[in-house]
């Protein structure tokens, strides 16, 4: 693949940082009672969404999971409309009707976060079929977790995509835990990418906390798909820094040492280190400026959300059907 420029590397860092700061604010807003229901933080996994989406164009489509804010941001969504949706406001992406688990921006090809494990995998396979029928070389990317790789839709979708050579990239974010059930005891193979062989498609294991490695793997898979060579399964080894949800009663049964070890593999710190030490491409001033800009954007999103009106009650009756 073509050489990644320093600008692109900085852009990816900015995206990861934006996701991180957005998620931190969303968590505090949830704990303050401004965001309702549930929030599933993407903190720690930012390199996966960022690296994959950096290989895509606006016309390519993605779908996500219950942990979908990161993918939405990486695909290019507007932070204001995202935060407004989390705050349940009329100006939110879904007019306040979806919330965190249904955050979406169809205009930029983000077909939604989905509250059902594996619920989006066959949907994005359909977007891949549409891309194949369109004949314009576009691709579709489905994000899902280790838990979803055990569920029926994963297996059905990979089989069909393989049979029909659909331009779909299946990205498994293996963060080693499905809520509080370890992948070690619930996934029959150690590397989920090995399941690709069962469907006759390539499977790739990637350090999911190395955004450049993710980009490289994604770019190769995207190129295959655009060339009509069919689907790929990419398994990104990663870890969520926080509990499964931000709910106060959410248990976290993961061993403390394991959590600490993964915190030391923070994808943002690793990218900062690479830019600064290996390439001399990010000095203190630039890094601080980036932080300030990102925080400003997140602050603005919160301000926008807080100032947005709540939906009128009667609007609950709208949008059941398209006209």
């Amino acid at each position: 693949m073509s050489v990644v420029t320093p600008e692109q590397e900085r852009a990816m860092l900015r995206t990861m940082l934006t996701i991180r700061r957005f998620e931190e604010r969303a968590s505090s807003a949830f704990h303050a009672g401004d965001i309702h229901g549930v929030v599933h933080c993407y903190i720690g996994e930012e390199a996966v969404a960022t690296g994959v989406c950096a290989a895509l164009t606006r016309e390519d489509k993605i779908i996500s999971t219950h942990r979908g804010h990161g993918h939405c941001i990486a695909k290019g969504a507007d932070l204001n409309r995202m935060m407004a949706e989390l705050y349940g406001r009329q100006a939110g992406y879904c007019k306040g009707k979806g919330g965190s688990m249904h955050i979406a921006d169809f205009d930029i090809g983000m077909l939604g976060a989905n509250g059902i494990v594996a619920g989006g995998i066959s949907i994005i396979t359909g977007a891949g079929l549409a891309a194949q029928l369109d004949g314009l070389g576009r691709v579709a990317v489905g994000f899902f977790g280790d838990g979803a790789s055990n569920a029926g839709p994963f297996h059905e979708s990979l089989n069909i995509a393989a049979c029909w050579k659909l331009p779909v990239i299946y990205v498994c974010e293996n963060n080693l835990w499905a809520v509080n059930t370890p992948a070690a005891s619930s996934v029959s193979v150690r590397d989920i990418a090995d399941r690709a062989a069962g469907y006759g498609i390539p499977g790739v294991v990637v350090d999911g906390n190395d955004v450049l490695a993710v980009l490289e793997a994604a770019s190769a898979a995207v190129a295959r798909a655009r060339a009509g060579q069919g689907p790929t399964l990419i398994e990104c080894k990663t870890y969520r820094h926080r509990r499964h949800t931000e709910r106060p009663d959410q248990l976290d049964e993961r061993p403390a040492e394991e959590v600490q070890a993964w915190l030391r593999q923070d994808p943002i710190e690793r990218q900062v280190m690479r830019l600064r030490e290996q390439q001399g491409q990010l000095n203190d001033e630039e890094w601080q400026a980036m932080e300030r800009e990102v925080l400003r954007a997140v602050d603005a999103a919160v301000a926008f959300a807080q100032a947005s009106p709540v939906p009128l009650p009667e609007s609950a009756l709208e949008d059941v059907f398209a006209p």
Partner: protein
Amino acid sequence: MRTISYAAAITEALAEEMRLDPTIFHLCTDAPGPLLREFGPTRVRATPIAESAMTGIAIGAAASGYRPIVDWRLVTFCFVAMDQIVNQAAKIHYMFGGQAKFPITFRTTVGGGTRRAAQHSQSPYSMFMNLAGLKMVLPSTPYDMKGLLKSAIRDDNPVIVFEAGRLAALTGEVPESDYTIPFGVADIKRAGSDVTVVALAWLVHEALAAAQVLATEGISVEVIDPRSLVPMDADTIRDSVRKTGRLVIADEAGPTAGASAEIAALVTEDARTFAALKTSLERVCALPVPVPYAPGLEDHVFPDRKRIADAVRRVMGEQRSRTAG
């Protein structure tokens, strides 16, 4: 006007719509021969046996500018797709705030009478009726089928077209022209003045047969075919019951929380219609059991013209007839 079968009306509607709109494609575990021959394997796809994935694929393709038709075949096979139907298709337009449209047609066969026992003889449409976000129709004639299936395909929302298995060979007059029937419009299949019988699918024809016999007994039966389950035409049903004052509902599904219960509620919750009722209503439904195999058992489970006629006589205040007919 020429006469064609219910099954032929389906194929005709599909082919005509696919000729008109190149974004339509058809998914089924067996590609239907006539469509495959005319439109080829790209648009008429044989799929692996994976109804959940087929349903999800239709949703994703619909969001991406296509107009998929998914044939689940017997309704029993769609149960593995319930997450995609209930949690995705029914809700996807609403929970994303109307960001995209999902023009999908689901085709599926319902009903029994084929001696294929519990899993293959079902009419579970009321399960889907209770959800918000799905439209559904249940045509009982070739004419209704062609017009409603075309409407379903042209609708920009997920629509389930329930095809009554027992009616596949039923023939009827069907215009060769392009016509559609709107959703939410019931059809008065037979005008009458003494009793309203609201019947679904195959039982429309059983109700019509019962009406002929009852006419010889001096009972005038009005048979109403809702045709459209969601939206359902409450006005036509209520108008009829206000005229006759008596209601029998005939549905091949079991009674509990069925379409028959919904129709009963539509009638009794309307004050004017309730006031017009001369007696309590009757429902003629399948026995509340899984459908058994042995012919005698299956026939005992399902309602037919005799049970409909008996119900009519009861609401007319007469004892149940001891003679056949």
